[in-house]
């Protein structure tokens, strides 16, 4: 069994992992290795052939594969970065700081000085939403349907219903339509959409696809193949209202019902957030173990891939710092105040800029985002039309920040 020492080992070559490689490589460490389950870099970007990526990071609008290609080309300049595809992490021994990686070429024991976890997210499966009815062929998660259409040139069905109005669900509703698959409707259990406003417009309204808010599936019918899907309206306690059922004759059900940070390999030794299920991080991307960093959707589910790459870059940079000087700064917790549903990172680490990502708990026409450190007001600004589906990014430069716990709240303006 081969052993490979490495300065920075990155697990996952998606938008976050590629960013991490860039961040680490720039700092001039000797060796950065990215290992990836698929045979190529880019991760899920490869199947996201729609545009809308890169407006922040590259200042232009790109498709997923273009975005992936752009970061790959940025990495070409760095000889200290190596990519290895078709690799599978079997286990991580956090005590001995080794990573066992299996591939067709055999088993390799990596001895990394630092580890950057960029494993992304998985889709919540149909069993995750207690979908009632039969379990025939024709039920796909949105990502799987997207993969079949965009990468494998295969059709998942002829008439579809999309469950969940998250961005992937909306984009898939459009994609299916463009490929000649009739999309009857998109169904969302919340009273507001789960995806970005621009996607509601560009993916549903432009194609006359109805969106049923406050509705859920009450029965899937069909023994061998999906034949019908029954939906019903939900009351305020999320219980179906009798008599509101609607039956759709479809052969395909596409589920876009949430992403779950992929942390299975790490949950025995890295702290995860009980609410988001993501890996707990500081503002440098450092996890609960000082030599392990994390970024991207395995830490919190982001709206924009640009942010994912940015966070990856930062985690890679601080991983490289740790390789060089082994230091770790003091950290202070970020606390959720009123109306904050999702908040990331979990800690502020001294010496870094604070890049906060948050989602409000409920839709608000005008809200003041207020960030305080003890009695020191770090940020206090009115934001219009705050939605749980739209992640807000607030950047606070390092010089403004002192010591002490930080509270983030959103109050009605």
């Amino acid at each position, binding site marked *: 069994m081969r052993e490979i020492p490495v300065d920075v080992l990155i697990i996952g070559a998606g938008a976050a992992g590629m960013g991490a490689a860039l961040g680490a490589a720039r700092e001039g460490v000797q060796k950065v290795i990215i290992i990836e389950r698929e045979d190529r870099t880019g991760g899920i970007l490869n199947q996201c052939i729609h545009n809308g990526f890169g407006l922040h990071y590259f200042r232009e609008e790109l498709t997923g594969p273009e975005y992936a290609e752009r970061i790959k080309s940025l990495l070409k300049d760095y000889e200290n970065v190596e990519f290895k595809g078709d690799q599978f992490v079997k286990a991580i021994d956090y005590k001995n700081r080794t990573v066992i990686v*299996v591939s067709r070429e055999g*088993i390799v024991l990596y001895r990394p000085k630092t580890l950057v976890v960029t494993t992304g997210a998985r889709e919540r499966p149909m*069993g995750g939403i207690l979908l*009632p009815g039969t379990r025939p*062929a024709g039920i796909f998660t949105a990502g799987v349907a997207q993969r079949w259409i965009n990468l494998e040139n*295969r*059709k998942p069905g002829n008439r579809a219903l999309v469950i969940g109005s998250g961005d992937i669900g909306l984009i898939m509703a459009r994609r299916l339509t463009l*490929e000649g698959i009739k999309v009857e409707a998109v169904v969302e259990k919340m009273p507001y959409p789960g995806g970005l406003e621009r996607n509601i417009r560009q993916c549903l309204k432009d194609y006359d696809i109805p969106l049923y808010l406050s509705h859920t599936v009450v029965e899937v019918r069909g023994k061998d193949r999906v034949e019908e899907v029954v939906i019903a309206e939900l009351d305020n306690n999320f219980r179906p209202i009798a008599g509101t059922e609607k039956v759709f004759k479809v052969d395909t059900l596409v589920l876009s019902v949430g992403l779950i940070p992929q942390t299975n390999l790490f949950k025995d030794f890295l702290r995860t957030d009980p609410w988001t299920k993501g890996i707990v991080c500081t503002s440098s991307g450092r996890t609960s173990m000082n030599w392990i960093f994390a970024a991207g959707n395995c830490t919190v589910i982001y709206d924009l891939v640009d942010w994912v790459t940015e966070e990856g870059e930062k985690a890679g940079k601080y991983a490289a710092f740790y390789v060089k000087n082994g230091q770790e700064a003091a950290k202070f917790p970020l606390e959720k105040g009123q109306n904050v549903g999702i908040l990331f990172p979990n800690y502020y680490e001294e010496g870094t800029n604070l890049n906060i990502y948050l989602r409000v708990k409920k839709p608000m026409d005008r809200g003041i985002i207020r960030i305080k450190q003890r009695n020191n007001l770090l940020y206090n600004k009115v934001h219009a039309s705050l939605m749980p589906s739209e992640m807000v990014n607030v950047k606070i430069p390092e010089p403004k920040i002192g010591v002490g716990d930080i509270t983030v709240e959103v109050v009605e303006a």
Partner: protein
Amino acid sequence: MRIGIIGAGAVGALTARELTRYDLEVYIFEKEFDVGMGVTKANSAIIHAGYDDEPGTLRAKFCAKGNEMYSAVAKELDIEFKRIGSLVLAFSDAELRIIEELYKRGLENGVPGLEIWDRDKILAHEPNINQEVLAALWAPTAGIIEPWMIAIAAVENAVENGAKLFLNTEVTDIVIENNKIKRVVTNNGDFEVDVLINAAGLYGDYVSKMAGVETLPIHPRKGEYILLDKEEFGGFVKSVLFPTPSTLGKGTLVTPTIDGGILVGPTAVDLPGERKFREDTSTTIQGFEFLMAKAFKMTPNIDFRSSIKTFAGLRPETPIKDFIVGRTKVNGFFNAIGTRSPGLTAAPAIACFLVEEIQEAMGITFHRRANFNPIRKRIRSYIQMPLEDWDRIIEKDPLAGNIICSCNKVTEREIVEAIKRGARTVDGVKFRTRAMFGSCQGGFCSHKIMKILARELGVDVSDVVLRNEKTKILYGKVRT
């Protein structure tokens, strides 16, 4: 002598295997695309200790015996079986009296190791049980298993020993001459047989009627289940937790599965006997709510946000709530039906009984084959292997290093081997390898598995099916 068995569920499969010990021609007729895909596939996956069944019933007779046999059966067939023990929880004085009854009944049925535990002992063993528990009946011989694996492994072993398996073969008629079994008519040809065993599960009464033997009617009793992700809830409970039983059955249990997840179920809803209901494995909102309420009562910290799979199974129930096993008025026709719970546990004992019963009823003696091989080996898994050994294997066999299912760490070699052993469908691969059984439920690997199936079966990926020819997953190309 030619012996036909209708149904390749646990009972049929184990009976077929038992018969291949002798110099007989054994045919297995299965109407589905794969073995073990009916009643056997979807149940609590428990090998019961045997204290539930009223003494004098066939259930009592076969359950305790079957439980005892499972150690050897699982060893010979190389399937995972863990005697993790079960606890029947009592939350009131009335329930306490019932578990004391069960204790006595268990002694009468010959169940070993039964104990009544007090609250402290229960909570020391299972800290996640509701603190209000008063007492429990501990049965150390209760165990968990992958029920479909019993059918898969037993059929593999039976075929290895000469049995012939006919899949997609539905018996449509049975020809009797002079009150003796003559022929089985199927959609896949006719078969002359001397003995016919009806292990047709939910269709047992129909098949019996084809042979001119009226039996008690069978109706399906539906049991819904919720499976929780092992990554979130693995180890939540160590043993099988039952509530105190009621007239409707053993109640909703909370149990670990062989794969490490936590299974909650079943419900118990009697459905009418008509044919369409015998295939109604749909789940319901009411069922989910029922299961959650029951599970919260036993284990208040359970969290259904970690569910990854829901399913329902049907139990073949008769009005007498007992098995119908043995000879009939037709010479050579034997029933092994009505195998409701604890049918899975009883299956090996029923198989052995049938071998004796056939000989006795027909006045003949089977001759043992010298070359019967009782050993079947499981598909080799690499994940637990010492790394040096695995590394050496990959050097010669790169597929053993290509992990396809990353949740359960299943390699391409295991998937190819499963196909070699008879998996023709996505479910066939799933149940043989545990690929797609994990947290992502195939989100990351189902396309890879479908491509491997297509390659190995020599078809386009659009022709790969979920569980039978009517369950194509893809509808051809998007763009040609």
